[in-house]
């Protein structure tokens, strides 16, 4: 009976997925081998028997729903070789593409005891995300939880689950998710952008050619850290100064340690606890970097709290932003505030800086596209006007630039979900509690959704009119729905304002020092080598 119900369910849901399976798989293949997309279909990933367009009878009565056992995928041994011997961890995004070509748009992999079902299909991803309940779970965050238990810390938005998560999300999204709420940070961010521009001038002045900024990601890291701190802590940290204050330096070191231990400690969630005495370093580094991150947040939160208390004691009116509000309303406990400030800061620095670094690199590689965007900026703002958030709707190519950068280099090449109910996806019954990997990197490069998928075309995102819609589940770099990136609008504002001013003021060129830069996965999708670019004054 249950099976019947599932079959009916499958039938009902097919119209949304329709006949795209065959076509888009071929196009995905065509991504690596362009000529292939022209050749007649030879490979067919049939989710359903027949021609891929199900009839009610075929689906509703005759087609059995397949189980995980039937699902193709790499063997455990080949996965171990790929990841541990061939260092597949740094190529997860490429392996994702290869596996989706080899095994189809839904396949299973084993990482030790962990079974993962990967979904590299726009429509199936849409089905999964649209079916979410009120508190979706991303992944097993046991190691994060364990650290927090050990130190008596609270969980934040990344590490919390269920009702704990929902409570915090409900509070925080009312503060920093709505575009119009975030727009008020425009002036604060512009203060940081002014320092970024000054820093570009200072750094290039230190080079023999007077133009090159070496490893532009370091610069953007400091920009992103300064930007997010202004919003989270209502405080400038001095990350864009010549001499970075000691506390900020310590934090930067902790973040770097966190990411350098990512590979070993995050994925080594697969390493069972009993192995820790034998291989103690990953877990030690993991705890150590969290200590650093929490310490930093705590110092800044405590400082704000004492400022508020002092102002109140003096009978002054207290005004403030996000942190002041949280401390005043106590919608979250102090520990929850520490944890969320820590996790939001961690989530808001590298993600933004990598995207800005890639944007800069892509602009430098494509001078004509850059010129087009420059002309739009100057047409809209003139050569000097500082853009504010209200100007962004008049700069569709700036928005397109960020979207296109994130399509080509989605900072999170895959996202996780643990299914909360039994689902039928792609013809397979996936039981509740299964770890899904949504393969955004693969779908972003799907020729079917994005013609000329490997090309950098910010223009593709510009709408002709408000009814010009694209089904863009293919590229959802911030995720979708109730558990999507809470910092999305903040990140967009930081990137839009910074890129607009950089393009307005400088012609960005590839430095002769830069080799071709490929992406590598290191927790996030990062530039695999230093991006050195020249900033030439426009005036």
């Amino acid at each position, binding site marked *: 009976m249950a099976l019947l119900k599932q079959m009916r*369910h499958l039938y009902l849901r097919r119209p949304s997925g329709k006949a795209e399976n065959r076509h888009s798989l071929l196009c995905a293949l065509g991504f690596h081998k362009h000529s292939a997309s022209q050749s007649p279909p030879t490979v067919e990933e049939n989710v359903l028997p027949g021609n891929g367009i199900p009839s009610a009878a075929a689906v509703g009565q005759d087609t059995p729903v397949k189980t995980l056992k039937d699902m193709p995928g790499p063997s455990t041994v080949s996965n171990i070789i790929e990841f541990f011997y061939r260092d597949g961890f740094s190529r997860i995004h490429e392996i994702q593409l290869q596996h989706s070509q080899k095994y189809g748009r839904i396949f299973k992999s084993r990482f030790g005891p962990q079974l993962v079902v990967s979904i590299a299909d726009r429509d199936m991803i849409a*089905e999964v995300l649209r079916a979410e309940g009120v508190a979706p779970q991303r992944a097993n965050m046991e190691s994060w939880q364990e650290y927090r238990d050990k130190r008596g810390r609270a969980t934040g938005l990344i590490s919390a689950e269920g009702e704990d998560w929902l409570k915090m999300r409900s509070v925080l999204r009312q503060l920093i998710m709505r*575009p119009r709420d975030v727009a008020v940070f425009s002036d604060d961010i512009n203060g940081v952008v002014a320092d970024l521009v000054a820093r570009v001038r200072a750094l290039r002045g230190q080079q023999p050619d007077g133009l090159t900024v070496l490893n532009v990601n370091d610069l953007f890291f400091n920009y992103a850290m300064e930007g997010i701190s202004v919003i989270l802590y209502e405080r400038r940290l001095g990350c864009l100064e010549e001499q970075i204050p000691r506390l900020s330096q310590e934090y930067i070191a902790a973040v770097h340690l966190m990411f350098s231990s990512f590979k070993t400690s995050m994925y080594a969630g697969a390493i069972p606890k009993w192995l820790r005495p034998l291989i103690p370093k990953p877990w030690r580094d993991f705890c150590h970097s969290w200590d650093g991150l929490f310490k930093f947040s705590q110092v800044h939160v405590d400082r704000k709290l004492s400022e508020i208390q002092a102002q109140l004691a003096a009978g002054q009116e*207290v005004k403030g932003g996000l942190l002041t509000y949280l401390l005043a309303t106590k919608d979250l406990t102090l520990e929850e505030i520490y944890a969320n400030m820590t996790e939001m800061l961690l989530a808001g620095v590298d993600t933004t800086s990598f995207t800005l670094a890639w944007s800069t690199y892509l602009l430098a590689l494509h001078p004509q596209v850059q010129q087009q965007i420059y002309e739009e900026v100057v047409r809209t703002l003139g050569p000097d006007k500082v853009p504010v958030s209200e100007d962004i709707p008049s700069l569709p190519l700036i928005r397109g630039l960020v979207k296109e950068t994130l399509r080509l280099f989605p900072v999170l090449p895959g996202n996780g979900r643990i299914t909360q109910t039994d689902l039928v996806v792609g013809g397979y019954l996936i039981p509740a509690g299964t770890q899904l990997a949504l393969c955004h990197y693969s779908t972003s490069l799907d020729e079917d959704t994005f013609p000329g998928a490997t090309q950098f075309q910010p223009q593709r995102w510009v709408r002709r009119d408000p009814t010009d819609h694209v089904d863009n589940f293919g590229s959802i770099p911030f995720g*979708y729905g109730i558990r*999507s990136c809470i910092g999305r*609008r903040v990140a967009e504002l930081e990137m839009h304002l910074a890129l607009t001013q950089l393009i307005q003021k400088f012609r960005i060129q590839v430095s002769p020092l830069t080799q071709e830069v490929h992406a590598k996965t290191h927790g996030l999708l990062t530039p695999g080598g230093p991006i050195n670019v020249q900033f030439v004054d426009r005036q």
Partner: protein
Amino acid sequence: MSVVSATYRLHSISKRFIRSLSAVSAHNSLKTPSTRHRVEACIRNRQFSCYPRALRSENKVTVSFINRDGEKVTVKGSPGDSLLDVVIDQDLDIDGFGACEGTLACSTCHLIFEEDVYKQLGPITDEEMDMLDLAYGLSDTSRLGCQVCLTKSLEGMTVRVPESVSDMRQSDFGTTSSSS
């Protein structure tokens, strides 16, 4: 897992944010008269509505919703209220509606308008268009309910709630999006 129903949650949160203007100090060690000012200062536009409630006239606007099962429900809302406000305030039972509480992170408050009404609606932002790209059953006259505010000129309009994937799932697998 027992989770509070989405509708109830939305309701309580929207109320809470309005309430917090005056009642922020109930369990607050920072309780002083100036606390209220500060919170007002930093809350900014933290209600669902497009306009402050004080600006609304008492003239209500009549709106009809055609539910997913074809049933027509007619309710009244205040000018300035968003259609999401109306759904919450009137306790309309639309499963999964407004999951992100009007923060433009989902498209679950997707509504379909009559063409002449659609043309009268306020301007559409880029962020709303991006979210509509991800709406199920998108039409040329689709908008997000959280972004459309009532005005007197919309009196008597009818909006349709599009069918959703989760409807189908619900009939097959039981409730997935809320339980209370």
